Every structure is written in structure tokens, then in C-alpha cells.
């Protein structure tokens, strides 16, 4: 089931195109990661989907319907830095959120325990550390059990324990048939919690698909040999292994999926090359992303 459909979403600030003609859709129960370097338009995109800022052009439909109040109450949103009343306690701030969403106050304590702020719930927001503020923002987003979660850099400023807790929370929500859209500049984070990813660069989508499917479907084998010149010579003349790259003393061979390391090893022995290092290396997401980003450039 389609939760969100985005069509040609664009935001310009004067001559700067912050978000350019985005078209994508979200399916129910999936965890999406929006990935991109700083200033690539992640927050702008999420803010538009939250109706905090107006798109310059394009449209988006939540649950197949035009935007509107009833729609937004189904969304749990956390944008950029946590915004709460400095002079109110964590509990009072959540009470305001509960009032707006029509959620019973009894849920506040549950959420406070879930985000680990229950002991400090009567402290003023301004006495909180960045990590605690971030936790409260996540708490505000999940209050009222929304169907869709939009989280902008949710682990920003959290300690390792907090990061693990947020990941656990996201996985748990994903297990409850919730749809999650998460922005991050940390590839690792996306790789760990997301099933789908959208890569943004300078406001453009440059990749939209599964996290696990290798973006370029390539396997890389690392090779080292005493006689590296002979090794490169043999590789150049081969059919299957001609696509390689030399970085210092290491050679990286790109091969088709049906070729294994043992085939390569046998081939080298036939040509009297003694390998000192042979390793199978699945390309990591990080390298995929760098590759995608570089190709665009």
C-alpha cells in the first residue's frame, strides 16, 4: 500500500534550487533512508512533506489524499533541532503536544519511559543536554502512535547507548507496520536500520532503491603479489579480469557475479603468478554512495 506519493516536488530560494523535482513514493511498513551530504536538501524535503514550508512547485499526497489537517495527525514528525518551550518541563512540553493531537495524558509517561527521560520529566527543557533534547523530540514524534514517522537526523547528538536505543525503537516501529522516513548523513545508520534508501545530491535524487541490493551489482576482489608487474600484465591479457584498478601495492579486480575467487586463483596459478593476498570484498554501501556521488559529478 502506498503511504506517500511525491510528484515533482521543488523548492527554490531565489536562484538556489534546494530541492529539484523529486518524485518518489513510500510503501507501508518500509523504513526509508534519505541520504545525502550536508545541504543536499534532506531537511527541506522533510519540512515540505510536513507542510512547515511551502513547495515552489510539485505536489505530494499522503494516504492518496491531498494534504490537510487530518492527514498530519497521522504523522509523527521530528525536524532538525528539537524545538520546545525552554521554560517548561519535559512533561509540560509533551502535554502541549498531547493536547494538539488529542492524545490522552496517560500516554505521556509511557513515552517518557520509552525515551529514557522519565526521571527528568519535571526538569525544564533548557536544563537538558543536547542528547536529552533530541530524545524528547523523538518522544514528541512517537506520542500518539502515528502511522508514519518522519525523523530528521534522529541520532544527532546522542551517546552510543542512545543511538542504539533509537535504532531499536525504529526497528520496533517498523515491525508494527509503521512507515518510517529517516534522513541522515550517516551511511552506516541508514545501512543498519533502513530497507530502502533515497540518495540526494544538490536537491536531486541520484539513487532510489533497496539498501541491500548492491547499487552497481559488482564484486571486487583484492589481489597482492610479490611481482606486481607480472600480475598486472596477466590481468590485462585476461578476458574476465581485465577490469581492474591498482592502488599502491594492491590490485582491485571487478568481476562478474558468476566468477569466484577460486576461479581467479586457478587462473593465476596457470600463469605462474603467486598471490600473496586474495580476498573477496563485497562493495560496502559507503563505497556505493561515493561512487554514485562521483558519477554525478
Amino acid at each position, binding site marked *: 500500500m502506498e503511504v506517500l506519493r511525491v510528484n515533482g516536488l521543488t523548492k527554490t530560494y531565489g536562484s538556489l534550487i534546494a530541492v529539484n523535482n523529486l518524485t518518489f513514493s513510500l510503501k507501508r511498513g518500509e523504513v526509508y533512508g534519505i541520504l545525502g551530504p550536508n545541504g543536499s536538501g534532506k531537511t527541506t524535503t522533510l*519540512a515540505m512533506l*510536513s*507542510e*512547515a*514550508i*511551502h513547495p515552489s512547485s510539485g505536489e505530494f499526497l499522503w494516504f492518496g489524499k491531498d494534504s490537510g*489537517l487530518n492527514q*498530519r*495527525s497521522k*504523522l509523527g*514528525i521530528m*525536524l532538525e*533541532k528539537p*524545538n*520546545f*518551550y*525552554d521554560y517548561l518541563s519535559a512533561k509540560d512540553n509533551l502535554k*502541549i*503536544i498531547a493536547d*494538539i*493531537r488529542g492524545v490522552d495524558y496517560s500516554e505521556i509517561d509511557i513515552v517518557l519511559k520509552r525515551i529514557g527521560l522519565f526521571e527528568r520529566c519535571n526538569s525544564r527543557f533548557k536544563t537538558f543536554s543536547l542528547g536529552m533534547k533530541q530524545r524528547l523530540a523523538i518522544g*514528541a514524534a512517537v506520542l500518539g502512535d502515528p502511522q508514519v514517522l518522519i525523523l530528521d537526523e534522529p541520532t544527532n547528538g546522542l551517546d552510543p547507548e542512545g543511538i542504539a536505543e533509537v535504532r531499536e525503537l525504529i526497528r520496533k516501529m517498523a515491525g508494527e507496520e509503521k512507515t518510517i522516513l529517516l534522513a541522515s548523513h550517516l551511511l552506516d545508520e541508514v545501512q543498519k536500520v533502513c530497507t530502502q534508501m533515497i540518495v540526494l545530491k544538490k536537491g536531486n535524487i541520484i539513487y532510489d532503491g533497496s539498501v541491500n541490493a548492491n547499487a552497481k551489482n559488482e564484486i571486487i576482489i583484492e589481489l597482492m603479489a610479490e611481482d606486481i608487474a607480472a600480475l598486472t600484465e596477466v590481468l590485462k591479457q585476461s578476458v574476465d579480469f581485465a577490469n581492474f584498478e591498482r592502488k599502491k601495492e594492491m590490485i582491485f579486480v571487478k568481476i562478474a557475479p558468476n566468477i569466484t575467487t577460486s576461479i581467479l586463483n586457478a587462473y593465476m596459478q596457470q600463469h605462474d603468478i603467486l598471490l600473496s593476498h586474495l580476498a573477496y570484498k563485497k562493495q560496502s554501501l559507503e563505497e556505493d554512495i561515493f561512487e554514485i556521488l562521483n558519477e554525478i559529478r
Partner: protein
Amino acid sequence: MLSIYFIALILALLGLQSIILKTNRNLQETGIASIPLLPTNIYLFPHIWHNISFVARFFKIFLAVVMIILVTNEYTYNTLRQSLITGLSRGQIVLSKIFDALILSLASAILLLVFGLVMGSVYSSGFDLWDVVRKMNFLAAHFLMVFGFLSLAMMIAFIVKKASLSIMILLVYAYILELIPAFKYSDSFGDFLPLRSINLLIQAPNTTIFDFLHLSSQSNHISSIHIIVALVYTTLFCLVSYFVVRKRDL
């Protein structure tokens, strides 16, 4: 901050009587006037309502500062965005601030009501219910005046977003900018400028001293034309606030 306003207003109203008595005595001693120029007892029913609401006219700027901060705080802490993404509509956000303005105006009117009832009972001889309630319409006018002024402050705050700048703009407009055309064109449109028309709701009490000073705008009545103009301006300020918030990226 609100309590500062209340305390300032109460002190001013309490002190007024002694200032008046002192001024009268000075004027008589220096021989300028042989009779008391100022009304000797401003706390008598029913005129107390007019007198105190006229004095309170000069204190509404304090409430406007409160109002400006209520609005600009939402920008400073970015809670406007938080409320919006939590599920409030832009219209509801503006409406919540209009409610704030209503509450402040109502609190101000209630303060005057309580003060008037207490001081009036103390200083008036005898208790005539008709005398007590006869001029209470000045409290309603006070409410409308404060609400109109606060909606102007709210509009400026929504547009400008910064507290200090909003306060400066309001002060410069209220005490300098508007006075020039209001004075120069007082025969034609001068009386219909926003603040002037709001202020004309409660004019100076028709007393010897203001006669003496040739004060043009004095009346013991509230004219309906001023009520209508004030209502129109108030509506306009609220609508402009709404359109600003609706159009803007938060």
C-alpha cells in the same frame, strides 16, 4: 511581566488622586486659578469608570510588550514549527494568539472593574446601583481598545519575528509616526488612523482642566462610529496576521 503592568496601573490610579490634590493646591497658591481646576474626587460613581479607563489608556503599551513577546517567543524557540508539525493548522496558530490577546484584554478590564468597585465604594457616599453600573460601558470600550492595540502589536510581531525590533516599531509608530498625520489632518482622515481611532474610544473626561487646556478630543460618551472603526481595524490586523503566517515558511 503581566504583574508589572497590573502593579504599575494600580499604583498610577492610586497616586492620581494625590497628584490632583497637590496640583490643585499649587495652582491656587500661585494664584493661577482661584477654584480647583481638576476634579477633586475622581473615584466617585459613576464617573470613576470613565476616569480610570482614561488613565489606563496610557498603560496599554505594557500589555503590547507582553503580547509581542508571546508571539516572537514562538519564533525564537521555533515552537511555531513544532506546533505546526504536531498538527495545528496555521489558522489555529494565529487563533491561539488572538485568544492570548483576548485574555490579556479581559484581564485588564477585570482589573479596572475590581479596582473601580473597591475605590468607588470607598469614596462614594451611599450606594446607588444605577450609579454604579451607569458608565460601565467604558470598561467594554477599554476592553475593545486594548484588544485592538494588542492585535496591532500581534500583527507587527508576526511580520517582524524579533521581539526588540517589534517593540521599537510599535513605539515609533504609536508615539511618533502616527501623531504627525493625525495632528495635521485631524479635520479629515486624521481621526481614522489606526491608533488614533482606537484611542478615541475613550476620550478625555469633560472637565475643567481639559477645557482649560483646549483639548480637542474630549467627550463623556463613547461614539458608535469609533467602535465601528476600531472593530474594522482589529479585524484587519488579525486577518493580516493570518495571511502572513499562511504564506510564510515556518
